[in-house]
């Protein structure tokens, strides 16, 4: 396999950031509050840590096989057929994830902004853009992410900063409110919002210096996790836990409540939605990219361009399956939590087996030498 190693560490980190920040920002505080009440920041933090552990496992695996992705080294570690089976499950999961992201995007747009526009059109347009972008190679992929990161982070931070004018710190206390069971469930849901970070396995083979992938992962999860935590803290401080339970997209509501001083803009949701559309695009782009490239690698195809268009109708069809927004969120939460088995447990298993085998190998060579 010929690799042009052109992606820098910074680029890798930005890919992670813009991939992680996506549709999930909108219902994030709701998920967190459902899990932990006023202890939501704690739940979020736990979710971030869990996601970080998963990401580090994957990155360590990647640095051990700097030429390969999880699709290819998976076959090396567990054997060809089991590896292929697992890869198929992973691919299928990201296939679903792309569809759900596209649908959630469409659902927000239809119920909050463009109310007359058919849902199918918004979803289709989004998928089409992702499809077209996937046709290019990984460098373009890196550039697109790199380009959008400041545009995503800046406005979000501005909104959070100005919203604190209406904040009431009492809403953030007590730190632990709910049962441990609910908190654990909330933690899993939130950590599922970070599943996009799986893309790191695709990037490592193209990095200039694969050893630095750990550093990129750290900054990626640190910045995106920090943004998520800030959003949760700000929405709870402004709305309180009880009000958050009443709204679908507390983050969007936060932007609607926040005004720039001096009435320059009386509501910031316009800015926020513009940013959010880009954020959704980059997320969808990554998960679709992962799906297409993994299929390409598994089937050992030469070209992925036609595949990108070939898969699109299936994603679209899957996106249209949920009946309404309530069902959609049920599916998202269940799929997300189940997906943790794939995105954290599977790599963890691979890493354990790999470590075990390399130790045995070393022992064997030791025995032979002596």
């Amino acid at each position, binding site marked *: 396999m010929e690799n042009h190693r052109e992606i820098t560490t910074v680029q890798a980190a930005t890919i992670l950031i813009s991939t992680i920040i996506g549709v999930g920002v909108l219902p994030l505080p709701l998920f967190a509050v459902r899990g932990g009440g006023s202890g939501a920041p704690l739940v979020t933090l736990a979710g971030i840590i869990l996601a970080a552990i998963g990401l580090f496992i994957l990155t360590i695996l990647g640095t051990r096989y700097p030429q390969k992705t999880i699709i290819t080294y998976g076959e090396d570690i567990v054997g060809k057929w089991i590896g292929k089976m697992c890869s198929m499950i992973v691919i299928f999961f990201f296939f679903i994830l792309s569809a759900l992201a596209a649908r959630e995007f469409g659902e927000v747009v239809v119920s909050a902004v463009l109310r007359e*526009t058919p849902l199918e*059109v918004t979803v289709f347009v989004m998928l089409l853009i992702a499809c077209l972008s996937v046709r290019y190679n990984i460098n373009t992929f890196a550039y697109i992410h790199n380009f959008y990161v400041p545009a995503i982070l800046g406005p979000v931070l501005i909104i959070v900063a100005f919203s604190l004018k*209406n904040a009431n710190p009492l809403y953030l206390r007590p730190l632990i409110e709910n049962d441990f069971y609910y908190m654990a469930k909330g933690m899993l849901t939130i950590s599922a919002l970070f599943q996009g970070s799986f893309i790191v396995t695709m990037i490592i083979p193209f990095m200039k210096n694969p050893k630095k992938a750990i550093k990129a992962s750290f900054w990626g999860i640190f910045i995106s996790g920090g943004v998520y935590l800030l959003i949760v803290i700000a929405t709870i401080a402004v*709305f309180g836990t009880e009000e958050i339970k009443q709204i679908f997209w507390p983050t969007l*509501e936060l932007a609607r*409540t926040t005004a720039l001083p001096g009435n320059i803009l009386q509501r910031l949701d316009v800015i926020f939605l513009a940013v959010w559309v880009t954020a959704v695009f980059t997320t969808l782009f990554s998960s679709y990219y992962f799906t297409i490239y993994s299929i390409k690698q598994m089937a050992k195809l030469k070209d992925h361009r036609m595949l990108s268009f070939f898969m699109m109708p299936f994603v679209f069809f899957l996106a249209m399956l949920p009946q309404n927004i309530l069902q959609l969120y049920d599916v998202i939460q269940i799929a997300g939590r189940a997906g943790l088995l794939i995105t954290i447990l599977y790599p963890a298993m691979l890493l354990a087996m790999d470590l075990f085998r390399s130790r045995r190998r070393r022992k064997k060579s030791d025995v032979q030498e002596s």
Partner: protein
Amino acid sequence: MTYKNPSLRLVIIFFLLFPLLSGCWDSQEIEQRATVLAIGIDKASNKEEAQQSLGGITHFDKSNSSEPEEELIKVTAQIAVPGRIPLGPTQGQSSHNSVLIVQVVGHTIQDAMLNLQQQVAYETFLGHLRIIVLNEKIAKKGTQRFNDFLRRNPQIRRTASLAISKEPAEDYMRLVPELQRIPSLYLADMVDNLSALGRFPPSFIGLFWTILSSKGQDPYLPYLTIKDKKSIQLSGLAYFRGDRMAGKTSPLEIGFYMAIRGVGRGGYSAFIKVPGTDEFVLVKAISRKTKVKVKLKDGKPHVDIKVRYESEIEEKTSQSIYINDSTIVGKIQDETSKEVEKSLKKLIVKTQKAESDIFGFGEHVRATYPKYWTKEIGTKENWKRVYKDITYDVHVDTRIHRVGMKAK
């Protein structure tokens, strides 16, 4: 072959892009829109109810009781007339025709809005809705049934204002103030600016919902009256018990309320009797600093309120007293503190009687004693019962820093 032909490619692209020119589904010309600027909600009278049953459009059939049981409300909406709202300062134009006033009856707001749509040719648009005026009588029966629609509709701003009126809300919609060309904007500015001037704590519909949802606090709203059929006056703070209005305070009590809530910006002044004389001075609160602490005393919450005022003497009523040394200022300080302390206690007692914890002491209890809260209280209703007889201490400390530019 043909695929490589550049001119053919251009033609294809041209035809592919052609359908996009028609615009999107949501495009709407601004003059085709009925922009609702303000809404007033009243109880419907019997006559109007009869009208509704003739022209109802949201229920299937009268006979099979497909009608909601809620009382009918009368919604008066102020709709901007496209093109009539002047942008710059133009002279000598009356504001009479810049808005259209439509009145409809319905079971809920959306029901009424649908009825309204039957009367207006253009699609109603609520994105610029600045203020909703609720009549006192309706507010006393509960506001929760309006909140659902307002929360669900994405057009409504969370920063819109909500106010309670003594007179029918309809009158506010028909009122023509002299200071602003667009009546509803004057009304909205009035409510918005009040908090900027320190006359009222921050109040907008999103905040009202937030407080209403929180378990340990009851909401409040500005209470408006009409003076001389011409001008609007803020004449108190309407306090709620849950979603129902429970009563109103006097205007000065708004200041005391802000003191307990710890709203930093002062704005109210009060006459204070100078000790030892019969004369008064007007003392204005510039800023306040409040510390609220909740303790558990014998298993019951006890509130400790410390307020520190930074004040200024604005005026004295008579020439016979002199404000020229610091001892007299000190005496005025003490007198002010005493008076304010008394009034604060009175206000708390008033809200306790109404079981309306507008100060949010319950939130303090929930935040500081979570175990006690979940075990003993847990719900909003329970907190009201506890709030009714909680004990409290009030300490007021006044500092007069300035006396103006006069030496005597």
